[in-house]
C-alpha cells in the first residue's frame, strides 16, 4: 500500500504581470492511500490545478510552507522526473505537443525510465500491452506512430493522457480536469480507462469542476476547495449536493467570506 499526504501546504506563484508572488494555496491538508479515489471539486480560480501541479513538481509553483509526503518521504525537493519514477502521475489539462517523437517511442521511454537498464521492456511485451490498452480506450493503432500530441484534437489528447496512465501504471494518478471539453462518449471511454486501473495498487485524485465525471468514476471521498483551502470533505453524496445547490450555497452554509470568481456582482 502506498500513501500520499499533503500537510499544511502553502504555495505561491509569480504573477506574470505584476511580477509579485501571490499565495494560491493557504494550508491544504489531504491524506490518501492506494485503493482510494478522491475527488477535489471547487469553483474556478480556487487553486485546484495549483495543487495538482505542485504535487507533480511544476517548477513555477513555490512551496512556502508545509510538506508533501509520498510513502512517508518528503518529495518537495525532488525534481519532477524523480517524483514520477516514485509513482506519481499527472494527466494534464494542456499536454505539450512534441514533433519528431512518436507516441510509441515516448511511451517506451517512460516505461523504461522506471526499470533497470538490464530489465527494459521487450518489444513484444510492449506491443501486447499497448494493443490491449488501445482497444480499451477505443483508440486507433495509428495514434502510436503519430508524433506526441501533435495535431491531436482535444478529445484525442485526453485519451492519450489516459493511455499513458494505463501504460505507466503509477501508484497515484492526479487527473486534472480530464473531463473538460469531452463529449459524453469520450467521457465514458476515459472513465472506463480509469476504472480499469482501480484496485489495491492504485489511487487517484480527480480534479473536476463538474459532478458529471463522478457519475462514471465514483469516488470514495469528495473534497471541496475554496480560496486555497479544503472547506469540506464528505462522501459521493457531497458532489451531488453541490450539483444541486452550487458552490455559493455551500459557502453560505459554511459561513465563509469568500468571493467566487463566477459570482455576479
Amino acid at each position, binding site marked *: 500500500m502506498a500513501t500520499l499526504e499533503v500537510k499544511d501546504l502553502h504555495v505561491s506563484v509569480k504573477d506574470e504581470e505584476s511580477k509579485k508572488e501571490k499565495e494560491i494555496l493557504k494550508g491544504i491538508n489531504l491524506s490518501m492511500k492506494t485503493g482510494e479515489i478522491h475527488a477535489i471539486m471547487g469553483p474556478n480560480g480556487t487553486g485546484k490545478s495549483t495543487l495538482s501541479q505542485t504535487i507533480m513538481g511544476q517548477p513555477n509553483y513555490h512551496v512556502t510552507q508545509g510538506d508533501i509526503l509520498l510513502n512517508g518521504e518528503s518529495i518537495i525537493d525532488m525534481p519532477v522526473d524523480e517524483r514520477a519514477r516514485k509513482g506519481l*502521475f499527472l494527466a*494534464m489539462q494542456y499536454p*505539450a505537443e*512534441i514533433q519528431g*517523437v512518436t507516441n510509441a517511442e515516448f511511451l517506451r521511454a*517512460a516505461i523504461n525510465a522506471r526499470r533497470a537498464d538490464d530489465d527494459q521492456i521487450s518489444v513484444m511485451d510492449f506491443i501486447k500491452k499497448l494493443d490491449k490498452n488501445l482497444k480499451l480506450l477505443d483508440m486507433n493503432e495509428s495514434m502510436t506512430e503519430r508524433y506526441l500530441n501533435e495535431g491531436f484534437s482535444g478529445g484525442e489528447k485526453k485519451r492519450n493522457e489516459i493511455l499513458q496512465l494505463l501504460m505507466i501504471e503509477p501508484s497515484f494518478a492526479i487527473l486534472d480536469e480530464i473531463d473538460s471539453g469531452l463529449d459524453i462518449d469520450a467521457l465514458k471511454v476515459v472513465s472506463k480507462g480509469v476504472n480499469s486501473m482501480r484496485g489495491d495498487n492504485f489511487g487517484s485524485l480527480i480534479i473536476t469542476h463538474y459532478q458529471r465525471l463522478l457519475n462514471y468514476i465514483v469516488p470514495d471521498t469528495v473534497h471541496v476547495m475554496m480560496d486555497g483551502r479544503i472547506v469540506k470533505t464528505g462522501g459521493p453524496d457531497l458532489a451531488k449536493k453541490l450539483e444541486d445547490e452550487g458552490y455559493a450555497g455551500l459557502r453560505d452554509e459554511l459561513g465563509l467570506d469568500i468571493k467566487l470568481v463566477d459570482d455576479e456582482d
Partner: protein
Amino acid sequence: MTELKVEQQLVTASEENNEPQSLLDRRLEAYKLMDKLQLPKMQRFKFHDWPLIKNQPLKWVASDPQAVLEDEADHEVIKVVQFGQSTIQIALPKELQDAGVILTDIFTAAREHENLFNKFFMTAIKPEENLLTAYHLAYLNAGLFLYIPRNVQIEKPIEAELIQDNTQDEPLISHILVIADRGSKVKFIQHLTTVGENEEPANMMIELIAQDNSEIDFSSLDELGSHTHTYFKRRADIGRDAHVEWAVGLMNDGNTVGDMDSELLGEGGYANSKMIAVTTRQQEVGINNRVTNRGKHTTGLINQRGVILEGSELIFNGIGQIIHGAHGSKADQQNRVLIMSDQARGDANPILLIDENDVEAGHAASVGPVDPHQMYYLMSRGIPRKQAERMVIRGFLGAVLSAIPSKDVRNKLVTILERKLTDGQQYQ
C-alpha cells in the same frame, strides 16, 4: 613562389591529369583573379583568420582504399565513393547508362563530356565571386559530375560518400555538378567525413542546375573532422516550374562557414532550403542561407534549426530576396536556435529584401533554451532530464530529419546527433 612559377606548376599538374585545354585556361584565369579578390563576407560572423587556403601547389595524390572502412552494401541507393582525390566506387546501373545518364568523377566529365561540362561548370557559382571561389577553380582536385537527360526520372537515390583524406598533406577542393535536364528527376545524398588528423582546409562546392520542370532533392550529411576548416558553397539555379529541396544536416566537428543559395530564375519555380546544425566544444559555424525569387510566381522557403552546445558559436542568417518583377512570389523563412549552455553563443537573423509589392513574405526567428513546457511534460512521465532534453531537441530538428530519403543516412544522422548531444550535455 613567383606567379610565373605557380602558373607553370598549374600547367604541369593539369597536363598530368590529362585535362583539356579549356579547363587549364579556366584554372589559370581563376588563379589570376585570386590577387584581386577578397574573402567572402558574412554578417555577424568572423572567419577571416581561418586557414581556408593552403599555400602549396596542385598535386595528384592517391589515397589507399584500404584505409576506408566499407559499409555493407546498401541496395537502396546508387553509391559513389571518393576518398581524397581517388574514386573508389562508381557504378551506374546499366539501364540508367542506356537512358543517357552520366555519373563520373569531375575530371572524367571535363575530358569526355567537354561541351556539357563547359556549358555548366561554374556557371551558377562564378569564380569571380570571391577569393575562395577563384581558389576553388584554380586548385580543384576532386569531385563528381551527374547529368540526367530530359524526362529521365531516377527512382533510387544516388549517395555520394566523400571522405576527406587528412592522412595526406592535401586540402580537399571538391566540386559536385548536377545537371537535371528538362522534366528529369533525381534524389542525391552526399555524406562528408574525414579520415586522419592533419589540419587541412576543405573547400566544397555544389552546383545544381535544375532546368525547366525538373526536380532535385539534395540531402547532405556533413560530418567533417575537427581538424578541418570548411568553406562550402551550394547553389541551385532553378528553372521554370522546377523544384529543388535541400536538406542539410551540418554535423561537422570543425569550424565551418557556408553559403546556401537558391536562385529561382524561371516562372513557377520552387525552392525549400532546410538545414539543421549542431555545434559543440569551441566550434564556430556561420551560415548564410539565401533564396532569391527572380521569376514570377516562385516560392522560396528557408527553415534553419540549430542547437548550440558547450562553448560553441552558431550564426544562422536567412536571406530572402524578392527581385522587382517577381510578381505573385512567396518567400518565407524560419531561423531558430537553441542555446544549451551559458558559454554557447548564437544568433538567428532573418533578412528580407523585397523589391516587389504583389508578393507574400514572412519570417520567424527565435533564440533561447529548450521549451520548458515540453520538458516538464516529458519529465512528468519519469523520463530523466537529459534524455527528455534530447527528445525535445530531436523534435525541434525533426523537419530536416524526415526529409532525408535514405533510411541509412537518416539513422546515421540520428546517431551522430545523439552522440553530440550526449557529449554536449556532459558540459552543462
